[in-house]
């Protein structure tokens, strides 16, 4: 997925999220957490500040919530502490990318090892 596609998914998702909050049949429901489709799963994590992180993965992958929490920690550490990051532009922080790939690799190894 390149930058434009990611931006498209993000904006689509933002509106769907707002609509789903109103339409939800169960009371007290705050957000969509998981979207299951034939070829992929989409997991969402929403922080206390309203920042949404989502992961597109193969159907049936486990422990995505833990991975999302780890990614959120990486985001706060490497992106928000970076003086050269301006909000609302796509993230281009080297350290964030390195640590993100490491976290995903570790996750993949853990899953395959099981």
């Amino acid at each position, binding site marked *: 997925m390149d930058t434009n596609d990611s931006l498209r998914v993000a904006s689509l998702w933002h509106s769907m999220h707002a609509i789903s909050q109103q339409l939800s049949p169960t009371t007290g429901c705050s957000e969509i957490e998981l979207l299951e489709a034939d070829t992929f799963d989409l997991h969402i994590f929403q922080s206390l500040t309203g920042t949404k992180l989502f992961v597109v993965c193969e159907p049936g992958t486990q422990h995505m919530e833990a991975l999302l929490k780890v990614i959120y920690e990486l985001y706060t*550490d*490497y992106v928000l*502490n*970076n*003086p*050269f990051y301006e909000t609302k532009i796509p993230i281009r*922080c*080297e*350290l964030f990318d390195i640590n993100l790939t490491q976290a995903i690799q570790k996750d993949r190894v853990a899953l395959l090892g099981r």
Partner: protein
Amino acid sequence: MIGTGKIKQYANVLDKPLGKGKQEVSLSAFAFLFSELVQYNQTQVDNISELETRLEDAGYAVGARVLELLCHRDKGNRRETRLLGILSFVHSTVWKVLFGKVADSLEKGTEHEDEYMISEKELLVNRFISIPKDMGTFHCGAFVAGIVKGVLENAGFPAVVTAHFVPVEGQQRPRTTILIKFAEEVLRREARLG
């Protein structure tokens, strides 16, 4: 009456002994503050070398104060007169107090007599900072270079201190080296002292 603890009351607040203070500060809080410092200075300058100069000046003030404090606390009000003495002071004591560990290494430059290098795998101030490609050779370690300069100059060893990235094979992130170039008079004095 159950024995009340006797706390010595000092008549004059200036007589109270200086406490060591809290040894630890939150890393995130510092990273955030440093990031704001860099951002603020970015709005005030026109080019990268001015930004580095500003960070160095900020560090200089810290270095001057750290020297006074450490001389009083850790060295019992003795001051260093020899070059190697002050360098090892910076390399171990100052680094320990500021960053919680001794610097990785202290080397003498091979090309020039007056150059020394303190190198570190990753400076604490740079831990969360990724420099965008278009900023070229800019190094946030200029702040630490300023601290070292403040310590050295106020101890009587005027020097020019800069921070550089040195790429290392086998590691994705380059090492950081603080290059210290002493002034002429320091070398002459050192030669005289023998």
